[in-house]
């Protein structure tokens, strides 16, 4: 089974795509937010395309990991077909503005700009043009989904990602519509239109699978056709639209100059946009060479990730990542804080991590300092002093080691006799003697060296 989706998402703009009518079509009586342009009156010409819609489409495409089509004319075309909700007998739809993206394992074939047609009630036979001309972005996937569950999961994730941008109209009855394409082994591709919700997509697919399997089971052919989903009955029905299968006779719209997107514009939008978690995670891995698991934890909160990137400028990123993933997260969780709540400055955290990186304090000592830092921010160097955590000088450590050996002869004998765990016992004694100011690893190293002399 192959399932592909064509998702139509309304963009959050105040004006329509090619005229200045308001876009709040659900709040007003029928045919109120209209003008000669969006009702296709004889002689009407479009205004220039809505810039915010164009920029939003580029941003959404970047969110979906697409390559934006740059330095080539992106024509706004006329797509001709006959339907009551299409006031001019054609829909203005752009060539792809971006291609080759991916979300959750589903490939995105392309993203382009469209305008919404009016609202046609096919059962009553009435048309309201309030919605006509509202900017849309169309997202077309490859048929990479394999089940209604796949489709549902994808759509939910897609909605999350789109809403994250703040550039789409919130999902409220029709801001997002989907056409689903499904083909079973041995059958042709069937397109189902008129789906207004994720649940609808799921139910439509389930119905189609049942319907198509039954047909194939009876030895009948599943023909290529366009069907409509009827929400109230949760079934699909053939639309028998010969005209809709006909050639759309695309031509560049002579009344609208083409768009040419350049790299500078894409970079500009990329810089301004809020990077979504799933993309930021990838970038952190690639840019800083850190582990996926660490990146995944870091992006769980935007400010946490912001803090990480600031720190990673001046501290070894791998060290920083390890600290963020483990100790920082642990301290925050323990104190029930989020990164937004912290009072210490990035500089202070950087100083602390640099001290750890350059072995000025042990990791264990660092964690103590961190807790203090979170509770009451101060210069880490001061905190280290105040807590008496400066690293012990080498001579004093040697003295402490020798002293611990002298005081714990029985343990020494045990160790030399082959009881390795006795070493840890002695090391513990050294820790006591040094007041925790020595790195346990160094204690062990020194102990081994000293005890070797004795053997």
């Amino acid at each position: 089974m192959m399932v592909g989706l064509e998702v139509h998402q309304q963009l959050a703009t105040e004006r329509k795509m090619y005229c200045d009518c308001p876009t709040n079509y659900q709040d007003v009586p029928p045919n109120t937010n209209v003008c000669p342009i969006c009702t296709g009156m004889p002689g009407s010409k479009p205004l220039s395309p809505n810039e915010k819609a164009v920029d939003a489409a580029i941003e959404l495409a970047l969110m979906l990991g697409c390559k934006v089509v740059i330095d080539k004319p992106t024509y706004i075309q006329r797509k001709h077909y006959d339907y009551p909700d299409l006031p001019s007998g054609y829909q203005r739809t752009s060539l792809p503005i971006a291609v080759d993206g991916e979300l959750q394992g589903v490939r995105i074939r392309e993203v382009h700009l469209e305008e919404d047609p009016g609202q046609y009630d096919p059962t009553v036979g009435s048309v309201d043009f309030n919605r006509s001309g509202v900017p849309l972005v169309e997202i077309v996937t490859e048929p990479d989904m394999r089940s209604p569950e796949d489709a549902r999961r994808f759509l939910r994730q897609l909605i999350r990602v789109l809403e994250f941008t703040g550039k789409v109209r919130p999902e409220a009855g029709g801001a997002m519509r989907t056409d689903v394409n499904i083909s079973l082994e041995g059958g042709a591709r069937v397109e189902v239109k008129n789906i207004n919700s994720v649940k609808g997509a799921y139910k439509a697919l389930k119905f189609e699978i049942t319907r198509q399997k039954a047909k194939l089971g009876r030895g009948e052919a599943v023909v290529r056709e366009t069907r409509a989903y009827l929400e109230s009955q949760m079934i699909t029905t053939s639309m028998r639209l010969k005209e809709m299968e006909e050639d759309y006779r695309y031509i560049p719209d002579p009344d609208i100059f083409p768009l040419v997107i350049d790299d500078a514009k894409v970079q500009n939008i990329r810089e301004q946009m809020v990077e979504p978690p799933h993309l930021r995670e990838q970038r952190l891995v690639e840019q800083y060479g850190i582990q996926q698991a660490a990146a995944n934890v870091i992006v769980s909160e935007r400010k946490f990730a912001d803090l990480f990137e600031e720190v990673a400028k001046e501290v070894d990123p791998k060290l920083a990542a390890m600290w963020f993933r483990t100790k920082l997260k642990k301290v925050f969780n323990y104190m029930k804080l989020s990164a937004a709540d912290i009072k210490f400055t990035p500089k202070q955290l950087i100083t602390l991590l640099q001290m750890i990186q350059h072995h000025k304090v042990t990791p264990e000592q660092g964690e103590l300092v961190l807790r203090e830092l979170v509770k009451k921010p101060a210069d880490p160097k001061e905190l280290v002093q105040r807590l008496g955590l400066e690293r012990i000088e080498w001579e004093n450590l040697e003295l402490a080691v020798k002293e611990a050996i002298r005081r714990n002869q029985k343990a020494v004998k045990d160790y030399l006799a082959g009881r390795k765990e006795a070493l840890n016992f002695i090391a513990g004694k050294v820790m006591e003697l040094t007041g925790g100011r020595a790195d346990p690893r160094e204690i062990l190293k020194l102990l081994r060296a000293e005890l070797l002399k004795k053997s």
Partner: protein
Amino acid sequence: MAEERHKEIERSAEEIVESFVKAAEGLPSEREMYYSQEAYNIVRPDGKPSSSEERTEFRKRFIKIMPAKDEDGNLRVEVAKWVK
């Protein structure tokens, strides 16, 4: 009758197309000229939409010339053939 006229007109429409093909035969390939001027990225900023006062007049006239309408101002058209 109408069918015949339709076919006759369709046939006569082809003459100039054939004439064009002949005329263009010797000519080189070129870029297509879709627009009289080279202009790109002519866009318009989003912003405050048109006021309802500006649109009430048009709405009145629009509804007035509708061949069929309902009392809410919807345009009335055919019911879809595939509706059960």
